[in-house]
Each structure stands twice: as structure tokens, then as C-alpha cells.
């Protein structure tokens, strides 16, 4: 890269006037296209911000112009009306619990597969690769969750802790049921297996010789070593759960259980014509993601695309 940078002025000196001109022209063209794209990307966001700062009459009078004053009330009102604290809490619970469970379970699957410590490690890995091409599981999954109370032993035990009659709907419209939907992610597992393969096997051996137990080895030695892969997998999985809409509309019917995506759609259904409030609500949903993106950009981009690039 640096070689290229150094050679640049030289080329200009050697070349006739045309090359320099051509380069300048190309720069102008590049910037114009980039700026045109940028307008296309910033525009909708800007309109959202402007709408959120207007009063409703003002919005109807002039939906696109600059706001006359700063109407911050939209944010506080949307926050109260939309039951936001509850939605936000739910989204956080789903994302944190499901991601944590998923990552811990996956490491314990990925490690022995990567090392061949269990028989059939190869076929097991194939099972995860093949899953990417299987039909969608939507409908049988729904039947499973709905009829969870009928499952012998597991269903009986689980529902003995819950109020009488709750087994009628199985895990439908429960937080537990919703979290169960997010405990698998084949791409995440494959990323972990590939990364663990790059960790030298001698490490396991010397730890084992020193009398380190299996679980302790995974938690205290392996996990810190595979931190980049863990970050990647956490990012993919957490963003997927946070943005999930379809499963939230299918499985959750009471508002107390809604994550923020579903809550926002309900809010749109009720206050759909009150764009200033709706815009404020959308901005509040976006905000945590945008902040995270600013700080963890590198991880997020590599996380979301690593499955694609390596696969």
C-alpha cells in the first residue's frame, strides 16, 4: 500500500499533462457519485429527525421543511405512550439471555468438534453446514412451542412450576418460549469451529497434564483465546435477535412481552398518522444501535459479513 502512495507523485511528473487532468476528473466524478449515494442514505434519516422536531399541525402544514422550533415533547410523549421502557426491557432480556446461552452452549459444541474429542465430529459438523440449505422451520416450530405442555416428562416438569392451566398454550406467548427460538445459529457455530482449529492443540495437552479439568479449560483458557471469534458470533446473534420482527409477531400476543420492534409496529398502527411522534419513537429505537455501531464498527461489519466471506 505504502509503495503505491510513494510512487504517485512520480507518475505525475513523468506523465504528460493528460494523466493529471484525467485523475482530477476521475476524482470529481467519484465524489459526485458518492455524494449522490450519501444523500440517498442520509435523506431518510434527516427527514426522520426533522419530523420528530415538529408539532403535528406544523408537520401537516410543511412536512419536509426545516422545523420552526424544537419540539422535544414528541420524544417524551412517545416514550410514555409507547410503553417504551417495557419494550426496551424485553428486547434487552431476549437479546442478552439468548445470546449468552447460545454462545456458551456453542463453545462446548464447537470445541470438541474442532478437536475431534467426540466420536462423529465430522458428521456432526456436516449437520450444521447442511442446515443452511434446509427448508424453513417456521410451522413445525410453532406446533412444538404451542404443544410444549404435551411433551412427556420435560413438559410436565416445566409446567409444574407455572400456574395451573398455563400448559394449555404451551410456551406460546411466553418469554421462555421466545428465547428458546434463538438458541441455535449454524453460521455462528461454524465460525467458532474454524477459529478454534487455529488454536494450537498443545495447549489442551499441557493444561490436561497440569490437571486442568475440561470445563475449566474451556472457560478460563479457551474462551479468552478465541475472543475475536466470540465477538463476531455475539454481534451476529445479538443483532439478529434485536431486529427480529416475524417471530415476535407470531409468538408474542400480549403487549407485556413485546420486544421493541413489535412494539414500534403496534405504535405505528395506533399513531400512524402522528408522524412527529412516530419519528421520535423510531429514532429512539435506532439510537442504541447507532451508538453501538459507532463504537464497535469494526466488529459489527466483520461479524455480519464473516459468515459470507469465509463460507
Amino acid at each position: 500500500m505504502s509503495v503505491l502512495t510513494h510512487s504517485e507523485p512520480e507518475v505525475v511528473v513523468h506523465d504528460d499533462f493528460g494523466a493529471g487532468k484525467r485523475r482530477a476528473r476521475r476524482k470529481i466524478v467519484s465524489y459526485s457519485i458518492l455524494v449522490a449515494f450519501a444523500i440517498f442514505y442520509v435523506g431518510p434519516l434527516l427527514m426522520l429527525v426533522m419530523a420528530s422536531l415538529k408539532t403535528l399541525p406544523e408537520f401537516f402544514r410543511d412536512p419536509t421543511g426545516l422545523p420552526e422550533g424544537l419540539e422535544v415533547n414528541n420524544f417524551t410523549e412517545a416514550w410514555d405512550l409507547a410503553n417504551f421502557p417495557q419494550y426496551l426491557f424485553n428486547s434487552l432480556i431476549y437479546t442478552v439471555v439468548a445470546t449468552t446461552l447460545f454462545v456458551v452452549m456453542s463453545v462446548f459444541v464447537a470445541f470438541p468438534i474442532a478437536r475431534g474429542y467426540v466420536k462423529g465430529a465430522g458428521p456432526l459438523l456436516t449437520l450444521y453446514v447442511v442446515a443452511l440449505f434446509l427448508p424453513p422451520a417456521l410451522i413445525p416450530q410453532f406446533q412444538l412451542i404451542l404443544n410444549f405442555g404435551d411433551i412427556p416428562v420435560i413438559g410436565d416438569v416445566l409446567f409444574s412450576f407455572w400456574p395451573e392451566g398455563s400448559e394449555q398454550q404451551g410456551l406460546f406467548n411466553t418469554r421462555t418460549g421466545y428465547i428458546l427460538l434463538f438458541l441455535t445459529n449454524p453460521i455462528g457455530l461454524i465460525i467458532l469451529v474454524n477459529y478454534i482449529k487455529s488454536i494450537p492443540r498443545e495447549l489442551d495437552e499441557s493444561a490436561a497434564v497440569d490437571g486442568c479439568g475440561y470445563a475449566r479449560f474451556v472457560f478460563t483458557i479457551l474462551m479468552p483465546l478465541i475472543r475475536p471469534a466470540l465477538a463476531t458470533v455475539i454481534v451476529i446473534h445479538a443483532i439478529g435477535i434485536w431486529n427480529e420482527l416475524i417471530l415476535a409477531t407470531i409468538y408474542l400476543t400480549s403487549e407485556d412481552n413485546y420486544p421493541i420492534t413489535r412494539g414500534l409496529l403496534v405504535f405505528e398502527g395506533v399513531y400512524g398518522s402522528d408522524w412527529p411522534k412516530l419519528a421520535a419513537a423510531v429514532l429512539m429505537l435506532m439510537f442504541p444501535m447507532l451508538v453501538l455501531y459507532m463504537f464497535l464498527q469494526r466488529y459489527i461489519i466483520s461479524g455480519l459479513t464473516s459468515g459470507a466471506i469465509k463460507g
Partner: protein
Amino acid sequence: MTAQQRTLFGAGRRRFIPWLLLAPGVGFYLVMAVGPSIATAFYSFTDATGLRGLPINWVGFDNYNEFAFEGARSRDNLDAVQRTLLFMVLVTVLQFGVGLLMAILVNQRLKGSLVFRTLFFVPVILGAVVQGLMWKLFLRPGGGPMDTIYGWLGLESQFLAGPSAFYWVVLVQIWANAGFTMVVFLAGMQTIPAELNEAAAVDGATGWQLFKNVTWPQLTPAVNTNFLLNIIGSLQAWMLFLVLTGFTNSTKVLGYVVYAEGFGQQGTSSFRQGYAAAASIVLFLLVLVLGMAANFVVTRRERKYLG
């Protein structure tokens, strides 16, 4: 025998510990993902409903027959299949082009290219609800931003409420995902050795020749990845339709049919999960066939460029 019973992390009963700790992950995977996935085929031959306690009967190919051949619904379904394919073609081609153009522009050593790159990727992390609502405001008829621009140009459109709604969803879909395509291309471009470009430049290659003879062949893996991902992704995508247009016949794609029939959302009152399972098998076959065809093309291309 003793050698077999002794593993790295202990002998005797302790050698089962890896198995024990592996079980929850694999168990959930089999029960929540693989099992249901395979069972979809089974459900497609039944009259299962989404209501508890109703008996489930085997109905053979009735669901498929009804899906494709019976009454007005089947015509709507075939329209939906056609629309899904059109959506795939438009999104795949345009998103590929836009993403590639973005990557080429951003990959130059221009001031601020990092800012542009960051900006173009933002929609990817926002999810369909935010993407959709943002564009609903932008495309609001009656004085919305796009409506105003249309006004200046002397044009008129109902946008998401009119006959062109489908194409607006195509636009938003591309807007939302082009950043992803761009990043995959960028990752590919970074693996192209600088010497190659330099050598070509010394030989007097200009921009287009450089692209055609160096960048494009070298970019083969990224090109193929994006091609496949765009095809499969756009066949399965329908969340933006849900947020932007809701359940209307003129914008219905196959993924939405599955959801609407199976879970009784807007427009249909049924919970016909057997029927919906049949529809999702149709979608799956579509993905499989087109995915494999694309894969065939891609492998041939790889052989041609990378030997």
C-alpha cells in the same frame, strides 16, 4: 481397552464430560432447528391448523393441489411466485451493481472514504422495522419528501399505496442491503496484491482496462459470494413488504403467503398451517433449484478465472 477409556481430560467417568457439555447445544439444535425443518415436509401433507386440540389429518397432495390449481387463491399464489422471481432478479442485479460501484469508489484513496463506507453500511444494522418506517415517512404521499421532489419534476405517484408499490419496496430493499454487498466486495479487493495493479499501471492500463483485466477476475470469490447471497436472500426476503405495504395482493411474495396463511395475519383469517407448510416447501424448492443453478454458474466461473 484402557487406552480407549483414557482421554485427554481424564479417564473413567470423567471422559463423558465433553459429551455431557456438548449435549445441550446439539440437543437444542436438533429439536428447535433441524427437526422442525425436516418436519415441514410432513406438515405440508396434513390439514394441521395453528389451533390447539384440533386433530391433524393426512391429506396427501391436497395442499399443493390447492396452492397451484384451485380457484382465485391459486391464481394469486402463482402471481406471488412470479413476483418473488421478479423481486429476485431486480434485487440481485441492482444490488450487485450498486454494491460494486460503492466498493470501487470507496476503495480509492479519497478523503472521507471511510465516512462513506460507514454510512452505506448503517441500514444493515437497523433491521426491517426501522428501515421500513423511515421510508414510509420518506415516501409519504401528500407532501412527503419524495412527493415534493416528484412535484418539482411534474410527476405524480401514490408510492407505497399505488400500483408502483412493488418497485418502491425493491428500492428500499436495495438501499437496506447494498452496504452489505459493498463490504463483501471491499474484503475481496483488499486481497488483490498491490503489485498487480502497479504492474498493470506501468503497462499503461487505464481505469477500465485495469478493472476488466485485474480487479474483476481477482474479485471472483467475492463476486460469487455476493451473487449467491443476493439470489437466496432476495427469494426469502419479505419483511420489508410487511412493514411497508402490509398484506395486499399486488405486493404479495411467497414468503409473505406462508406467514399470512399459517398465522392468520391481516387479510386472511385462517391458521392453515398445512397449507402454509406446502407454500414454504414451494419456496424452499425455488431457493434450492435457483441456488444450485447459480452455484453451477459460479463454479464454472471460478474454474475459468482461478484455474
